[in-house]
């Protein structure tokens, strides 16, 4: 909206405090980003001695070395598979659940929503060990290897993002006029046809927002990844720590690797942040 908020321009004191506050905040936000970027282009000598704001020379060596110091490529692929699969499954399941809660009245609806939401407050540490035992037992009983496999991690992560996703999509679906899907039902679509042809397309921003959230949750999780993975299934969250356990801490490589693993999520997030704000505005925050 380009119309000015008031007939009068904001007072100068406001403009100045805004300028100062936002400048300081930008500095606070950007310093670590700058450290990450600049250090990743430094030779090792620059990061072992006293900190330097500017590299003595620029080198892309760290970006080449990161792939051989630890099997970063494998971790990367693992993270992509785990986070991607968890996101897709989580979104599909959340869409179904949110549609049921938003469009139908049924017994146990309130119990369901309250229970699902309250799992958000469970400390991860409480069910880490039990979950580990369940996965091991399922593995022993059925031969389906959940522990140590990507599958177990996918299952875990997709459940982590479910409560928030369902909650947000309920709010979002509620804001899609019911007349629309009723019209679709009259036209002969089944309830699922109405969901996929009418409600889902109208709720795309909310769904994108939920997908972004689910992907970030899975991409960044450390606790379960450190217990539930082995050498072949290790994700970036754990794998990145491999650089610092060596005798020499290759800070330039750590920074390069951090940057490389951040780029997909940060780029995706920034591209889709409009949807996220729109989704939050229409869904969760209403």
């Amino acid at each position, binding site marked *: 909206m380009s119309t000015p908020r008031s007939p009068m321009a904001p007072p100068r004191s406001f403009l100045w405090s805004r300028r100062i*506050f936002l400048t300081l905040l930008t500095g606070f936000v950007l310093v670590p980003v700058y450290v990450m970027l600049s250090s990743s282009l430094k030779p090792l000598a620059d990061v072992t001695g006293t900190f330097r704001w500017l590299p003595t020379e620029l080198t892309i060596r760290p970006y080449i070395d990161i792939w051989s110091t630890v099997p970063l490529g494998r971790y990367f692929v693992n993270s992509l598979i785990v986070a991607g699969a968890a996101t897709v499954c989580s979104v599909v399941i959340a869409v179904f659940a949110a549609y049921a809660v938003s469009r139908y009245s049924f017994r146990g609806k309130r119990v369901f929503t309250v229970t*699902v939401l309250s799992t958000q*407050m469970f*400390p991860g540490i409480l069910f880490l060990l039990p979950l580990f035992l369940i996965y091991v037992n399922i593995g022993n009983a059925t031969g389906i290897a959940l522990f140590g496999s990507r*599958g177990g991690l996918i299952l*875990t992560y997709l459940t982590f993002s479910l409560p928030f996703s369902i*909650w947000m999509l309920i709010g979002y679906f509620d804001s899609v006029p019911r007349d629309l899907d009723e019209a679709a039902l009259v036209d002969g679509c089944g309830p699922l046809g109405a969901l996929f042809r009418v409600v889902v397309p109208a709720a795309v921003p909310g769904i994108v927002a939920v997908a972004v959230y689910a992907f970030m949750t899975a991409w960044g999780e450390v*606790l379960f990844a450190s217990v539930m993975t082995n050498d072949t299934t290790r994700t970036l969250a754990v794998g990145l720590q491999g650089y610092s356990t060596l005798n020499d801490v290759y800070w330039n490589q750590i920074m390069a690797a951090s940057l490389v693993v951040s780029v997909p999520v940060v780029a995706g997030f920034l591209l889709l942040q409009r949807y996220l704000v729109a989704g939050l505005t229409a869904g969760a925050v209403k």
Partner: protein
Amino acid sequence: MTAAAPAAEATVRKSSPGAARGPRRRTGRLRRVGLPYLLLLPALLLELLVHLVPMVIGIVMSFKELTQFYIRDWSTAPWAGLDNYSVSVDFDAPVGQALLHSFLVTVAFTVLSVGLCWLIGTAAAVFMQDTFRGRGLLRALFLVPYALPVYAAVITWVFMFQHDNGLVNHVLHDQLGLTDKPSFWLIGDNSFVALLTVSVWKGWPFAFLIVMAGLQNIPRELYEAAALDGAGMVQQLRRITLPSLRPVNQVLVLVLFLWTFNDFNTPYVLFGKSAPEAADLISVHIYQASFVTWNFGTGSAMSVLLLLFLLVVTGVYLALTSRGRRTAQ
């Protein structure tokens, strides 16, 4: 893994054409009654498998003497009654004392972190309510700490907090001369400040995001009317902005509280497996108590106590703000 999702989908698919062919009224009714449950089934199964059943097992484990000898087959571990709990809350003995200390550190940390995150996030969102040049760019920049994977962001802070080659000591000691000698940030008392800094840096953009979304629901006309009536910026903030944000803030503060209190990732990456005493957050403390000593019974009891505490706080909070229904929606 994904078995639950396609299976449920398949069931749903199967049922729709069948229903169209079969006797209309009966299947129609069945569908109307059964469909919502069918749609909920995958979510329900997953919640049961990953959240609810483990929680019940966790509670059962807290009543067992579950040491390393029984971990292979935990169901054979002898019952311990309330022993694990009495050890955890015996504040005169080392275990209880350490837990209490960790709890208090976590409370202080959470209050400060949530307060600062909310304050910075709200201030930034309010300052950026009106359009100005570069607002879109700034908004994107501000979301970067939130978008960065936790470990990548926190590792960068670890580097910045290094004693010899970190940026923080370089600036404070070498460039500004504020300290007599370079400080240690990741051990000793300073570690609390370090942890708080990282947590706020990482957490405030979420508050910013939510408040920004909340602000978009405030009708512009309110401000125009207020300005015509002669209300200044401060009055508009107090009379319109903050009251309109109330419901948003109530949920936001609760979510921030729960996330911060339960945060494991930040301290774990910042300090490694053994956190310094001054920054000994409860999640890492329980992790330590369980996995280092292999005493999972006591660890479980501590987790249950933590959950009870969070339940009570959340309950009281929701009762006080009397917005329980809104949150649960």
